[in-house]
């Protein structure tokens, strides 16, 4: 099937699940709010009565930020743990979101989204966490295998081969990121198979899926790449829009915030589209086994 057709279908399926998209977006917004609200309060206290702070309306001023951080003293040091908390919650939310989203996308159950999402989140959380934990060393291993030789060659070069060292370093980083991407896509596919077939041995499915993805990476990349390009286009549109806005508060600021959140909603939509595309790929590549076989394989009903 044509790559663009695949992407279009995935986007169309996403368009039909707006509530799922909004749920994913709003969940991230709520978690981010844990850090955002104290920051907003602090900045309001520090800048609302300080006209010097209006410079931030015109540009992101590093020296002013430096003054702000200095004036905040220990407050900004406290932001570190807060950000860490947000990161931990995000990491914990990811398997819940994946379970809920996949159950919503895969299930033909006509019940409400919240019901399906909650059911999937709860049912698959443990399995998805274990699969996620297995994916970390796998990502390091694949990145090491693919990028390691590049960094090795780079290290063996003399400093005078500056250009070669630069390009090899860049290539190494890109290859490592590519490897991590492949593992993440394999994790997605594996989670889809586990959710669709309700398989208990998630880690085993992940390993098998990763092997398959590494053997034919373009199959899953063909789904990811068009969606990534859409995201790049959306980001470029946002940056262009931001550049057009005059330095002002009020409606202009509201428009900016609206644009930012639309970008984030679009990003959540693209995530759902990716899952939709991956579900179609999984169905083609690993058709669902008959119920009897799944029962024999230890799946729950």
């Amino acid at each position, binding site marked *: 099937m044509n790559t663009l057709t695949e992407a279009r279908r995935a986007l169309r399926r996403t368009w039909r699940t707006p509530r799922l998209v909004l749920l994913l977006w709003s969940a991230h917004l709520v978690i981010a709010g844990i850090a955002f609200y104290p920051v907003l309060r602090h*900045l*309001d206290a520090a800048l609302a009565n300080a006209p010097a702070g209006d410079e931030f309306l015109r540009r992101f001023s590093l020296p002013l930020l430096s003054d702000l951080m200095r004036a905040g003293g220990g407050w900004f040091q406290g932001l570190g743990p807060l950000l860490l908390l947000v990161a931990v919650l995000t990491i914990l939310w990811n398997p819940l979101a994946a379970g809920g989203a996949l159950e919503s996308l895969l299930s033909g159950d006509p019940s409400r989204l919240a019901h399906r999402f909650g059911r999937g989140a709860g049912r698959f959380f443990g399995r998805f966490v274990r699969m996620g934990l297995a994916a970390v060393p796998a990502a390091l291993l694949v990145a090491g295998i693919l990028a390691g030789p590049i960094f090795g060659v780079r290290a063996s070069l003399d400093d005078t081969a500056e250009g070669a060292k630069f390009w090899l370093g860049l290539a190494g980083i890109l290859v490592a990121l590519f490897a991590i991407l492949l593992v993440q896509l394999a994790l997605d596919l594996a989670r889809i198979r586990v959710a669709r077939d309700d398989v208990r041995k998630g880690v085993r499915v992940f390993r098998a899926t990763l092997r398959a993805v590494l053997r034919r990476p373009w199959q899953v990349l063909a789904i990811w790449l068009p969606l990534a390009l859409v995201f790049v286009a959306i980001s470029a549109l946002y940056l262009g829009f931001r550049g057009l806005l005059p330095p002002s508060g009020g409606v202009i600021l509201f428009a900016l915030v609206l644009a930012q959140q639309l970008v984030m909603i679009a990003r959540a939509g693209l995530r759902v589209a990716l899952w939709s595309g991956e579900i179609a790929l999984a169905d083609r590549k690993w058709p669902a086994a008959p119920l009897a076989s799944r029962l024999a394989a230890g799946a729950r009903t």
Partner: protein
Amino acid sequence: MPAHSLRATAASLAFLCALPALAAPKLPERAATVVAYDISVQLDPEKKELNGREHIVWRNPSTDPADAVSDLWFHLYWNAFRNNRSTFFVESGGQLRRDKAETDGWGWTEITAVKLATGENLLPSLTFEQPDDDNADDRTVARVLLPTPVPPGGEIALDIEFQTKVPKVFARAGYKGDFFAVTQWFPKLGVYEPAGLRGREQSGWNCHQYHANSEYYADYGRFKVEITVPKRFVVGATGPETARRENADGTTTYVHQQADVHDFAWTADPRFLEYRETFSADRDVTPQEYAATAKLLDRSLEEVKLQDVAIRLLLQPGHEPQKDRHFAAAKLALKWYGLWYGAYPYETLTLVDPTPGAGGAAGVEYPTLFFCGTNYLYNFWPGKGLLHEAEIVTVHEFGHQFWYGLVGSNEFEEAWLDEGFTTYSTAKVLEIGYGRDNSIVDFLGLELGAVESDRMQNSLESRRYDKIATSAWQFSRNQYGYNAYARPALMLETLEGMLGTETMARVMRTYHERFRFGHPRGADFFAVAEEVSGQQLDSFFAQTVDSPGVLDPAILDLTSEPAPQARGKVMVDGAEVEIDEKRAAELEGEADDSESRNYRSILQLRQRGEMILPVEVELLFEGKEPERRLWDDGQRWAKWEFERPEKLLEVRLDPDGKLALDADRLNNTRRIEPDPAAARKLATGFLFWLQQGMALLGM
């Protein structure tokens, strides 16, 4: 010829002869030569060794008849790399300027012979001195005794033979593969300072050990240096190449000569790509720029006229795309430093791009030659890119041709006079070339100017304990860089803010003119600043240079409320009447109705730092033009009260940002009515990027 014509001719000649005296250029054309070096050196690139001999003629610069000199003091800088017991190594811990010394990279200088021109051997009298720290393991200063003292104005000639092991590149000098940065490499005389020079009470040698954070100080003189290297090497050196000989043994000898300089450096690398361009005093500077500068400085056009300079760029292969960036930055610097402070007086300027991995040699200055700082990455970021790193280093190191080269301050004792002045001047040149707000960073809306970059180092807590006027090796941990570079630059910016651009330009020009080829100290600059500005600046310099501490004027509180009616027994129209609470409220209501009630505004100011400088205060009353007042009572805090019909809406301290030393500008402004727009924009931007990060975690 008729008699009257002869007389007229004679009169004209007399007038013409008098002209140079009347319109004598303020810039000295030549240095008073104290020392002349005639050096011959051979590089063995395989053994990483230099074998050299030098013929030195030194003149006792003293004019005091009793001031005969009976010894000579030399710098042997490369003995800093002799072992890990040297003062340099002990202080640096083997790490300096983001560079780390390699354990197999030792270097040293051995003096193998010291003879007078008469043949008398002085080597037995050679001792190593440690004037700064009594570290007996330090051999960076040597002293030889003279059999006969050199009388004031008298000369002595001696011949020295020396062998050096070139260190692996670290801290300004050394080799990396076939790249050699041969700097501070020969036995070099210290400065004999007669009483009175730089405030010195007794005559004597000024010859400090080589410290981790110190650089150099030497006397002006003439250099003729013959450098012999294998034929494959490309050589760059101080001054113009005056001769070249191909030798039978496969080597080439390059002869470079330069007068009126206090050091000589050279470099060699077979990989150097050589490019040449000329800075043209006519093509690269417009008549308007000459005229504007002459007016700014109150000098004649002749005085600000520049001269052509042959620029030579020795670039590493792979850096070719940066060729034009280096030339453009060098020309920009030649133009503006020259216009502002006085023409660059030498024929040549050599820019050297160190080999990759030789970062220790990058960003270092020597007379008519300096080492740039760049890398392959900058091939892809032309002038208006993310970072102007290549330009910044070039403009800064060129600046040292003026502040270090032409004005020979003592970098050991007063590093700020060269680094601080250069940082200040660099910011000015970069602003002209690349913009005030974005001369350092300019990428996707992220901007940073040179002065702002200096300001960002000015944090309250860590900057309270050292003062600018400190010898380079006597700063507390991690304070040298700030106090030698950024803080003096901010001090000069602040001084400019107080004196005005024009006066400051004349202060800097006069200081340069007066001390070109001289050895000034900070007090000399203070005196020039007071003389040219006509202002008493001793308190300013005492606080900013001679004392630790920070400057941080701040608004403590601002209120502006309707003024309360007087209560109790008060005088009304010449009679004392009693106004109770009810009557007072009635009167206040009447005043409100007739809009005649005044506002009582109270502004409280505080100097949060140790420094107290005059601060301009801008008051914005409702419906009025901003008013300016000066807070200059010298107190640490102030309370200003106003009772006026207008509400005081907003107050700004230092509204024009003249006090560059101000550690925190956010507390300089206050308004009565809050406006959350900036806070919300910043906070929602934070939220957006946080969400992006979270999305990345979950793909």
